[in-house]
C-alpha cells in the first residue's frame, strides 16, 4: 500500500517542486539566514550554543530511538515513553546515591559507579517498559489503533503519579560528578568534559544498538516483525516475544537517557518526562518515524534548534517559546513532509 501511494507523488515531486514544498524550503532558508547572521554577530556564543545543542541532542536521540523502535514495530505512539525516561532519571539518582553512596569528589571510583548505575538503570527501565507493554498494550493488540494510544496516555499519567508518590512534588537533585574542566578552548569558548561525557556515553550505546538490530538473530526478528507481523509469525518468529524485546531495548535506551539527564542537568521532577518526551517524539517524527538513523539526526537537529532558540542573541524568541517552536516544527513537518527527513512515505502521511 505504501509503495502504491508513494510512486506517483514521488515522481511528481522530483520533476517540479509543488507550492507546498516551495514554502517549506523558504522556511528552511529563513532559518539558515537567521543562523548565519547570528554566527557573524557573535561567533563565540554561537559555538557555545552549538555544543550545548549537540549535547542535549544526544540525550534526545536516546529517547527518540525508543519512540521510533516502538512505532516501527507496533505503529503505536508510546506516550508513556517520556515518563519511563523520567523514572530512569529517578532510578539513577536513587541507585547512585543510596545504593553506591556516590557524591562529589570521589576520584576514579566515580567512573565505576556511574557505569554500574548506567547498567542498573537501563535494566530497570527496560523491565518497566516490558511490564507496561504486557499490562497495557498487549491486551489491545487487536483493538482499533487509537485504543492503545489512549491507553498510553493513561499509563503516562499513572507513571507521573508513581514518581510523585515516590519522590514528592519538588525537584530532586543529583550529585555533581561530571567534571566542569574544559577539554579544549576555541576562541575563548570552553568545551567542558561534562558535555563530552554525554557524547562519550551516548555513542557506545548507539553503536551497541546498531549492532543489535543489524547483526543479531533477535535484531533480524525485530526487523522482520516490523515489516510484516503475519509473515514473521508464519516464518516461526515469536511475535509477542519480539515486541517485548523491542520494549526492553526502548526502555533501556530511555534509562540511559535518564542517567545522562540526571547527571548533566542535575535536577529532575515528576513531570519532566512529559515535555521532554514530546520534544523527543518530535525529533523522531522529524527524522522519519520508524527510521533509526533518522531519529538520531532529528534529535540532534531539535537539540540544536532548542539551544539556538534559547541561547542566541539576535532575534531569538527565547525559552518562553521553546515548546511552541518545537510543536510548530512538528506540525510543519507533518504538513509539509510527513515521512520525515529520512523516512518512507506512508499512507498516514499521504
Amino acid at each position, binding site marked *: 500500500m505504501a509503495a502504491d501511494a508513494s510512486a506517483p507523488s514521488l515522481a511528481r515531486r522530483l520533476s517540479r517542486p509543488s507550492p507546498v514544498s516551495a514554502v517549506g524550503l523558504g522556511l528552511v532558508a529563513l532559518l539558515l539566514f537567521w543562523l548565519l547572521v547570528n554566527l557573524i554577530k557573535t561567533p563565540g556564543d554561537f559555538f557555545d550554543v552549538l555544543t550545548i545543542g549537540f549535547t542535549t541532542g544526544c540525550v534526545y536521540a536516546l529517547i527518540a530511538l525508543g519512540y521510533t523502535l516502538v512505532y516501527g514495530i507496533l*505503529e503505536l*505512539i508510546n506516550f508513556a515513553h517520556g515518563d519511563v525516561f523520567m523514572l530512569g532519571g529517578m532510578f539513577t539518582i536513587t541507585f547512585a546515591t543510596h545504593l553506591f553512596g556516590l557524591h562529589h569528589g570521589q576520584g576514579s571510583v566515580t567512573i565505576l559507579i556511574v557505569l554500574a548505575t548506567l547498567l542498573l538503570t537501563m535494566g530497570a527501565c527496560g523491565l518497566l517498559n516490558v511490564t507496561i507493554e504486557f499490562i*497495557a498494550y*498487549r*491486551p*489491545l*493488540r*487487536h*483493538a*482499533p*489503533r*487509537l*485504543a492503545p*494510544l*489512549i*491507553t498510553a*496516555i*493513561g*499509563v*503516562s*499519567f*499513572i507513571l*507521573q*503519579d*508513581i514518581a*510523585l508518590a515516590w519522590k514528592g*512534588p519538588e525537584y530532586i537533585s543529583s550529585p555533581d560528578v561530571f567534571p566542569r574542566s574544559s577539554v579544549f578552548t576555541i576562541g575563548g569558548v570552553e568545551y567542558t568534559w561534562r558535555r563530552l561525557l554525554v557524547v562519550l556515553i551516548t555513542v557506545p550505546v548507539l553503536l551497541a544498538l546498531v549492532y543489535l538490530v543489524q547483526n543479531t*538473530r*533477535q535484531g533480524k*526478528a525485530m526487523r522482520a516483525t516490523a515489516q*510484516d*507481523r*503475519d509473515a514473521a*509469525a*508464519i516464518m*516461526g*518468529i*515469536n*511475535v*509477542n*516475544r*519480539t515486541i517485548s524485546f523491542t520494549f526492553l531495548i526502548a526502555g533501556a535506551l530511555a534509562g540511559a537517557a535518564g542517567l545522562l539527564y540526571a547527571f548533566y542537568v542535575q535536577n529532575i521532577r515528576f513531570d519532566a518526562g*512529559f515535555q521532554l518526551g*514530546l520534544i523527543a*517524539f518530535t525529533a523522531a*517524527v522529524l527524522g522519519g518515524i520508524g527510521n533509526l538513523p533518522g531519529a538520531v539526526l532529528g534529535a540532534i537537529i531539535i537539540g540544536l534548534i532548542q539551544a539556538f532558540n534559547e541561547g542566541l542573541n539576535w532575534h531569538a524568541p527565547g525559552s*518562553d*517559546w521553546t*515548546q*511552541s517552536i518545537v*510543536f*510548530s516544527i*512538528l*506540525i510543519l513537518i*507533518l*504538513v509539509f513532509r*510527513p515521512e520525515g527527513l529520512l523516512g518512507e512515505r506512508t*499512507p*498516514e*502521511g499521504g
Partner: protein
Amino acid sequence: MTDVAAPPMRERRGLRERWHELPEQQRIGITIGAQIVVAILLYLLDSALGYALLTLSALYWLPRLPPLPWRLAAEVALVAVFLVFGPRAFAVVLAIAFAVFWVPARQRGTVIPVVAVFAVVLYPAFQSHMFTIPVFGVWPDTQTGVYMLAFMMMAVGLNIVVGYAGLLDLGYVAFYATGAYTAAWFTSLQFPHTTFHFGAVGIDPKLPGIHITVWLLLPLAGAVTALIGILIGLPTLRLRGDYLAIVTLGFGEILPQVARNSDNFLGTGFNLTNGPNGITPLDSMGFGHTISNATGGFLPANYLSCCSAKFLGHAVSYVDVFYWTAIVLLLITVFCSFRLQYSRLGRAWIAIREDETAAAAMGIPLMRTKTWAYASGAFFGGVAGAFYAVFKSSTFPGDFFFQISVFILCMVILGGMGNIWGVLVGAGFLAYLDREGLANTGAWINSNIHVGSHHPNIDVDLYKPGIYGLIILIVMLFRPEGLIPSKRRAAELHEGVHDEPLYDIAHGAYDEVGGVEA
C-alpha cells in the same frame, strides 16, 4: 468480549463457563449471599457504606423478581424498612427508582430524560436537604453544578469529534481557551484604547474597553472557536489517526503558551492576553432592565446583583441563575448534537469513522466533512469556555493544561464514545469528582483508613491526573465502549475497523502459529 479476547482471557472464560453450568437458583442464592456478606463487612467499616450496598443490591434484584404481587410486596417492605430504620433520603431515592421501573419500557426513553431534567432544574432547591453519600460526602453544591454543566457541554462537543467522526483530538483545551479568551476580550477592560458598548449590563457606559452583551458573546465565541478549529483542521485533517492526535496535541500546547506570552504580542508591545496575570474581571451576564421589566422580573437584569426571589423555599443566589442558564445552554447543545447525529452530515461522520476509504468511494468529501466535525466540536467547546469564563469572571493561561484535554477525553471515553447519554453521565461524574468528589473521598480515606496507627494523609488533588489515567486504562482494557455504550461503536471496538493491519484480521491464524519459538 467474545472471540476477540486476548489469550489471557481464556482461563477466565473457563471459570465463567463453570459458573454458568450451576443451576439458576444456586447462582442467585450465591450472588445474594455474597452481596449480603460484603454489605455486612462494609457495615462494620462504615454503616453508611453497608446501607448503600444493600440499596444497590435491592435495586439490582427487584426487577429480576417474579412480577407484580411479589415485587410490589418487596418494594413496599423495603420502603417501610428504610422509612423506619434507614435515612429518609434513601427511601426517596428508592421511590424514584421504583417509579422508573414501573414506567413501561417503551416510554422510558422519553420519561427518564424529562424527569432527569426536572430533577436537575429543581436541584438547587433541595440540595441542602440531600443526605450525605457514603465516602463521597455531601451532594455537590450549585457552584460545582455550573462547573459540571460547562464540562458536560465540552464533552458533548468533543464527542462530535471523537465519538461521531472518530478523529482523536488531544488538544481540545485549545478550543476551551479560545472561547474563554474571546469572552475576555469582548467583556473586559483589556483594550483600554477602544470604547465600544453593546448591551452590556452592570457597568458604567463610559467604561473603556469592548463590552458586548453575553448573549451575543456566546455565539460569537463559538464562531471564533469554530474558525480556529477550521484553521487548525485544514492543514492537518488529511493526516490519519495517531498523527492527527499528535498535531492536535501540538496545537493544544501552543495556544496556551501563546496566551501566556502574548502580553507583548510578537514583540510589538501590544498587550493581547495580559500574559500570566490573565484577564479579570469580566462583565456579568444579564438581560437588561427592558427585558427584565417586560417579563415581570422573571429574567434578571443582571445576574450578579440578583436575586431577592424565593424558589420552593430556597433563597435564589446568583450562582443558581448561572446554573439554570448552563442547563439551558446544555440542553441546546444536546439538542444540536442529537440533530447532527442523524443528519446527512452526522451519517457521513459515522461512515468516515468506520471506513474512510469506503466513505470516500461513496462520494463523501473527506476533508470538508472532517472539517465540519472539527468546527462543530470547536463551536460547543468555545461556547462552554466563554460561559465558564464569564461565570468565573476571569481567564488565566494556567487554566489550560494538556491535562484538561485528557480530562475531557476521559469523560467521553468513560461515558461511552458516540453516545450522548453516556457522555453526559461520564462528564457529570468526572467533573463532580474533579471539583468535590475526590477531595471528599480523600478526606474520608484520610480520616477512616488507618495505616498502622496513623492516617495516610494523602493529598488527593496532587494525584488527580494519575486517577484519570487509571480510569482511562481500566475502561480501555475492560470496557472500551464505555459505561453507556453506543451499540454501533461497541461493535466497532470489538470487531475492529478498517485501520487495523492485516495481522488483526488474520489473528485467528496467528494464534495458532504465534507460540512457535523463534
